[in-house]
Each structure stands twice: as structure tokens, then as C-alpha cells.
């Protein structure tokens, strides 16, 4: 009995507690990311944004959430029910399980696996299923077109992302996220690999279907893309999933290029601040970039989007992989 408690139950409880410790702040962040988005864009457009519910409109996300919860879940009569319901669940779950391997500080990670970066890459490549299942199961042409666009877009940009990740891995010599962060102790990879950083960030925009690559849900042409038939809780899951994905991609960018939890300089005022705070600040900065881009740029045309992915990013990142490998071998800096 003691064995059972010590061997299984207690560690299991600890893990569940850890999961909650990650998920609750994450979902709060998602809620307030929507608030921040509206406020930031409002400010850029010289408007006020939400300001009625609570002080400065701070309770707006809560009000939105409650509204969505209490609406009726409408399932179209022509829809494939099981897949229709499964799609938002898949999207939501996938946006959460990626956090299992994200290190918030040295050793502060739920699961420190050897192939952390591959795990994240695999999770992000699965993201396309939620979209494509939703589009197909809705039995609606707008939804299906949106899903097709989205799937093609995500698959295309994933390749560039993969090559960018490989350049970083070449410099690190490990697939473990903690190792990747520690390898940036002296110099963040954003500096030597600046072009890759830019490509990664833009691909992350495309991968999360954010402006200016938000064609899958282009209101003007496709009503709302793959989520057009969704309402209430199912829509809320999509919504949460997309924003959680934005945060996950930002976290990944921070880990790969901006030194994770490390302070910019390892000197007095900086290293007083704890690692998780640095990590959060960096993520917040990147999220601000996401919003800023949305407020600034018009939407891409679809052929331009594909051209950018296949004819610009793919060759550029491939070239950079070769260049990085060549430099590392020639100078003997390659990690063993």
C-alpha cells in the first residue's frame, strides 16, 4: 500500500498539480491576450477599446467567456457530428500539451525530454488537423475552403520552420530545450542567426494563421473560414486554442533565439530578476509584435503567401542551413 502511494499516487498527484500550475496562468494569459489585442489595436487606431465592463474594461474577457458559455451549441444538420465536435477539442488540446516541455527556468519544466524541440515541432504540425477536420465536418463550402487554405499554408510554412530549427540545432548540438537555452548564455542566437530569427517569426505568424496571413478566416471572402459554423463553447475552444498557440509559438521563439529565461546580460541589475519573469517579459514583447503586425499590415493574397513560403523562405532557410553547417565545420565551433 505504501509502495503504491509512494511509487504511483504521489508522483501522479505532483504531476497533476504541476499541470494545473502551468495551465491556469496560461488560460488567464490567453484571456487577457484577447483584451490586450483589442486595447493595443484600439490605441494604434486612436480608439479606446473595451472600457465598459469593470475598471478600464478589465473584466471584458470574463464577460465574453461567460457569454460564449451560455449560448446554445448549434450543430448544423449536415455536419458530421463526431468530427465536428472533435475538431475544436483537438485544436485546444494541442495548444496546451506543447507546454509540457517548455522550460520556464533552469530545471523548471514539466518534462525535460531529449527531443523537446522535435516534440514541439510535432505538436505544431498536428495543429492543422483541428482546422481541416472542422472545415470538412461543417459541410459548408466556406468552412471547407478556409480549411484547405489553412492546411496548405501551415504545411508550407512548417518546412521553413523546420529548417530554421535545424540551423539552431546545428549551433547547439542537442534537441533538448534546456540545452538550447543554455547554449545562448554568452550570445543569443537572434544575433548571429538574425535572418533565421526573422524568417522564424514571420513563419510563426503564418503557422498560427495570424495577420497578415489570416487568409483561412478572411472575413471579406470566406465569412470566417473554418470556424464559420461554430458557436458557443466549440467556438470558444477554437478561439482559446488559437491564442494559446500564439503564446506557444512566442515561447518557442524566445527559447530558440532570445535566450529563454536568461537575462540579456549576466550583470547586477539584470540577474536580480528571476528567470521566469524574463521569460514572460520576452514572450510579452513578441506577443506585442504579433498585435502590432496585425494593426499595421494588409492581408496577403494567397498566391503571394505561397510564393513567400516556397520561393523565398524555403531556399533562404535551406541556404542558411548549409552556410551555418559550413561555418561551424570550417571554424571548428561545431558542438560535438
Amino acid at each position, binding site marked *: 500500500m505504501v509502495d503504491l502511494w509512494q511509487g*504511483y499516487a504521489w508522483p501522479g498527484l505532483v504531476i497533476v498539480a504541476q499541470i494545473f500550475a502551468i495551465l491556469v496562468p496560461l488560460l488567464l494569459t490567453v484571456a487577457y491576450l484577447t483584451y490586450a489585442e483589442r486595447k493595443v489595436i484600439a490605441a494604434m487606431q486612436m480608439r479606446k477599446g473595451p472600457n465598459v465592463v469593470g475598471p478600464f474594461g478589465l473584466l471584458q474577457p470574463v464577460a465574453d467567456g461567460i457569454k460564449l458559455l451560455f449560448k446554445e451549441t448549434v450543430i448544423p444538420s449536415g455536419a*458530421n457530428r463526431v*468530427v465536428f465536435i472533435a475538431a475544436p477539442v483537438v485544436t485546444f488540446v494541442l495548444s496546451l500539451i506543447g507546454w509540457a516541455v517548455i522550460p520556464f527556468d533552469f530545471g523548471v519544466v514539466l518534462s525535460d*525530454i*531529449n*527531443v523537446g524541440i*522535435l*516534440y514541439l*515541432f*510535432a505538436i505544431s*504540425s*498536428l495543429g*492543422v*488537423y483541428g482546422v*481541416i*477536420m472542422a472545415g*470538412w465536418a461543417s459541410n459548408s463550402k466556406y468552412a*471547407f475552403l478556409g480549411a*484547405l487554405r489553412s*492546411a496548405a499554408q501551415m*504545411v508550407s510554412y*512548417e518546412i521553413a520552420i*523546420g529548417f530554421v530549427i535545424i540551423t539552431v540545432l546545428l549551433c547547439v548540438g542537442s*534537441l533538448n530545450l534546456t540545452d538550447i537555452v543554455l547554449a545562448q548564455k554568452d550570445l543569443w542566437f537572434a544575433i548571429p542567426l538574425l535572418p533565421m530569427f526573422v524568417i522564424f517569426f514571420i513563419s510563426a505568424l503564418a503557422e498560427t494563421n495570424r495577420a497578415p496571413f489570416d487568409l483561412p478566416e478572411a472575413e471579406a471572402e470566406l465569412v470566417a473560414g473554418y470556424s464559420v459554423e461554430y458557436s458557443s463553447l466549440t467556438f470558444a475552444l477554437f478561439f482559446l486554442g488559437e491564442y494559446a498557440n500564439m503564446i506557444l509559438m512566442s515561447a518557442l521563439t524566445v527559447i530558440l533565439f532570445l535566450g529563454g529565461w536568461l537575462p540579456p546580460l549576466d550583470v547586477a541589475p539584470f540577474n536580480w530578476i528571476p528567470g521566469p519573469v524574463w521569460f514572460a517579459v520576452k514572450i510579452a514583447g513578441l506577443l506585442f509584435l504579433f498585435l502590432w503586425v496585425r494593426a499595421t499590415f494588409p492581408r496577403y493574397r494567397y*498566391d*503571394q503567401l505561397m*510564393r513567400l513560403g516556397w520561393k523565398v523562405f524555403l531556399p533562404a532557410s535551406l541556404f542558411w542551413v548549409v552556410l551555418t553547417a559550413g561555418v561551424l565545420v570550417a571554424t571548428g565551433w561545431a558542438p560535438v
Partner: protein
Amino acid sequence: MIVQALTFYLFAGITVAAGVMVVSARNPVHSVLFLILAFLNSAGLFVLMGAEFLAMVLVVVYVGAVAVLFLFVVMMLDINFVELRQGFLQYLPIGGLIGLILLVELVLVIGAWVVAPDAAATIAEPMPAPERMTNTHALGLILYTRYVYLFQIAGLILLVAMVGAIVLTLRGREGVRKQRIAAQVRGRREERVELKKVPTRGGI
């Protein structure tokens, strides 16, 4: 240990069940989705075996790329698979017979199974101890040294597949206007803009 065994049976059971469903599902899209489920659970089995690299690559390549294209095709094709299955029963006897023969052969083979006495000596490269290197590292070391030849041929095969796909399907359509970004960027102000002095009350 018991948790590991339970996890194994969970993954293995779902894999087998999903495999059965791939074949028996009436809706082809459901078949593909079950196929994906089977892939994911196989990845789980790989993780249990300690082959984490293979597990992740299985997910990235098969689930993330191959199955997406599958799903695309199946969703767009709109084939009535029930109709396709009409002839199934007709071929059941001969198919069953071949299956039976193979089964008997397999049983024969397994009955006669002996490990060759010098098999251990012929194994090309002994596996390094897991604590010494991760399996990603080990795979990379062997793939790019001992098996570089096979690796390169595999690359060539993929190249041929790509060339073949393009040759057989790419058609230059008439009357399509393409955007030439280089030409647009190269354009100079003088070619695009003409400044005219408009006289007051005169119009152009």
C-alpha cells in the same frame, strides 16, 4: 513496471483497434483519421521502447505531412467507397486462400526458427549504451557514416519522385497572368508615373 505495461497495452490496443477501423470504416475520411490515430499510438509505443527520435519523426513526417495530404485527397475525391467494395465478396475466396497459404508458411517458418549461431557476430554495429549518447545522436552517427551511400540513394529516389510528379501533372495554362515580382521591383518611377501640369479650370 505495471504502469509501463498498462501503457503498453493501452497504446498497442488502440493501435490495433484503429488499424481495424481503418479497414472497416465506411467513411473514407474516418478511415484516414483512424490511420492517424494508429500512427500516434505507434509513436507512443516507440517512446515506450526508448526510441524517442523515431517517435517524434513518425509524428512529424507521417501524421504532420503524409496523412494531411491523404486527408486532402480523400476529402476532395468524393468517391463512393461502398460501391467500390461491391466486388469484395467475389474475391474473398481467392484472397482468403492466399492469406491462408501465407499464414501456413509463416507458421512453418516460426516453427523452424533458430537463431543462427554466428548471428551476433555479424551484427554490423553494436548499439552504444543509452547513457553514453541519445538515440538521435546514435542514429545520426550511423546514418551519415556507415549508411551514407544508402542515405544518398534514398535522396535521389525522392528527387526522381518529385521530378516525376511535376512531369506528369504540371501544365502551363494559357491565358493566366502571372505576377512578376522582379519586374515590378525593377520598375522605375519614370515608367510608372507621369506628372502633368493641370492648368486651372482647364482639365486634362
